[in-house]
């Protein structure tokens, strides 16, 4: 049994005219200690998926179908109070903007100690010692001195380290990291990625790493799920997806990345744009942009078909399609 099982999840945002489906029937699993990357362009549904897992979909948005199981236990229909407990203790989170996770009125030490106390039976002194060790662990220089500083006294990269310390301080088994390095400089990004990888390895923590940056996925994830218009179009071992993608969208996406040392005059480009939620077409959501689209693609929706270590939702790889 996987640590996290997302089974046919559907998330809707009601509007006056009809409900917009932001996440449409997606299934994924994360094993203990595994890093699952989730990529896709802005609006593809990555953050909504992450928010659904930690029980933070903003009403009137709601989980309208499917199940989320953590360690075998269903967590999507728990009370707010129960969800909050799981959030602190079992599932940690790191967001793009470190300031959203930090309270400007308290020192980082106070915030760490409070979280540790809330989720363990350590004494206050012990909690502070633990907090200090965590700050050292995430690479805050002169941690003994900085523990009593306020968030605004840290640089962006240092703040994100503090947020990571907060996310891991209760010893969660899963961390949802939503664009954790997007707001940081490249040289700092590398530090944060190295830190996340090390923590995950040392403590056996699983990570769902949401990003639109393929580079971050390449060096961090074990497996990767590619999202498009609220659906998973391809999922598999990261090496396979990045070096030999099969789904036409993933192929187009990989080819559009500029690379050092490649001197092509033009970048490969996918024409058009990802459809907005109210205009997702029937059949394969990618069909209007797909160079391989054929009749069936406009009528039926392809489901993920496993071939070897990867699975793609595309009729080109669907052995059963002749049956319809």
């Amino acid at each position: 049994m996987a640590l996290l099982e997302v089974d046919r999840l559907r998330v809707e945002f009601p509007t006056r005219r009809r409900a917009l489906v932001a996440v449409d029937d997606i299934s994924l699993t994360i094993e203990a200690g595994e890093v699952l990357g989730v990529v896709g362009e802005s609006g593809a549904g990555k953050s909504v998926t992450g928010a659904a897992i930690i029980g933070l979909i903003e009403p009137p948005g709601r989980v309208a179908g499917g199940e989320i199981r953590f360690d075998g236990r269903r967590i999507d229909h728990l009370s707010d109070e129960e969800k909050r407990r799981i959030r602190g203790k079992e599932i940690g989170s790191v967001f793009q903007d470190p300031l959203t996770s930090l309270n400007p009125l308290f020192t980082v030490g106070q915030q760490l100690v409070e979280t540790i106390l809330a989720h363990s039976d350590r004494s206050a002194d012990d909690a502070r010692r633990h907090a200090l060790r965590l700050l050292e662990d995430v690479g805050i220089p002169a941690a003994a001195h900085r523990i009593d500083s306020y968030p605004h006294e840290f640089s962006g990269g240092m703040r994100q380290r503090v947020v990571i310390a907060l996310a891991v301080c209760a010893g969660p088994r899963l961390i949802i990291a939503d664009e954790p390095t997007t707001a940081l400089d490249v040289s700092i990004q590398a530090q944060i990625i190295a830190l996340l990888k090390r923590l995950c390895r040392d403590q056996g923590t699983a990570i769902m790493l949401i990003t639109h940056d393929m580079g971050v996925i390449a060096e961090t994830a074990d497996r990767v799920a590619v999202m498009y218009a609220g659906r998973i179009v391809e999922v598999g071992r990261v090496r396979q997806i990045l070096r030999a993608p099969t789904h036409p969208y993933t192929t187009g996406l990989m080819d559009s990345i500029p690379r050092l040392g490649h001197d092509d005059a033009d970048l490969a480009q996918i024409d058009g744009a990802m459809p907005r939620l109210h205009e997702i077409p029937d059949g394969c959501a990618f069909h209007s942009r797909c160079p391989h689209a054929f009749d069936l693609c406009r009528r039926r929706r392809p489901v993920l078909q496993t071939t070897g270590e990867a699975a793609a939702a595309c009729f080109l790889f669907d052995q059963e399609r002749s049956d319809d």
Partner: protein
Amino acid sequence: MTDSSGPLIEVRDLVKTYDVSRPWLARVLERLPVQTLKAVDGVKFTIRRGETFSLVGESGCGKSSVARLVVGLDRPTRGSVLFDGMDLAGLRRRSDIAPIRRRMQMIFQDPYASLNPRWRVEDIVAEPIDAFGLVANRSERSGKVAESLRQVGLSPEDARKFPHEFSGGQRQRISIARALAANPDFLVCDEPTSALDVSVQAQILNLMKDLQQRFGLTYLFISHDLSVVYHVSSRIGVMYLGRLCEISAAKDLFRRPQHPYTRLLLDTIPDVEMTGRERVSVPGEVPDPIDPPPGCSFHPRCPFANERCRQEDPTPVQRGRGMVACHAVEEGRLPPFKRSDLGQ
């Protein structure tokens, strides 16, 4: 007057300092000194006609400040910018400045913030047409707007819409259409694709390349993304804390980087091709620009720093058409750069 064989842009020893002191009263009460920040410190480069010159560097190193000085949105504290041989600061009369303003246009990072949400696309694109009086009547104006929209892959019907009806990539096309409407020679593009997804970025970069060829445009391109810069540039300048550390032809910069900071940036590029190369994690952060370190400002993070570096500023040394400012390079004590995945 103008010399068409000379560079289109010549930037001479540009310095820009900002006053970042606390408000006057607080300063007097707390007896704090006036504080200044040198956002641009002695920057010098030229851009030839038809080429793409790029500036790269981490956040806060002064790229946008240089861009604003080059197009004249800001006045330099010292130094000068020559456009087609003319010193911008030397021009006093509006009638002398306007034609130059028209010839240089700017595209910004945030396609949401740079378009007035209450204006129709028609009026946004027509802004330079109106400002410089480029057409005689309304029908010519609509014709010119339609032409600009078509050039960037939008439709003339889009002229009637408002910015919120467009995606990020389409908004960036609108900004480019607005710039083109002025019939410019020179475009300053400040992180034009940083807010966009890679697939949309590819569309915009291809469009910019295409327009450059069609109209013989010259670009000053700004980005923190080295792979993007490699793809678009003829020559590249690497900035750190307000200074240029290295200027080089794009290919040379990546195959034979000289300055230790350039090498550091190259090492931090993620390995999308999964060749197995480890991304080097460099310790330390960019220092506070209000209080930069003495000597070479990169020395606290530089693996090759020695006593001289901690005290003495390296002077820029011309090397062919490039430049590098580093004691170790000058002293010949820098080991050759090796990277497995560039096929050297």
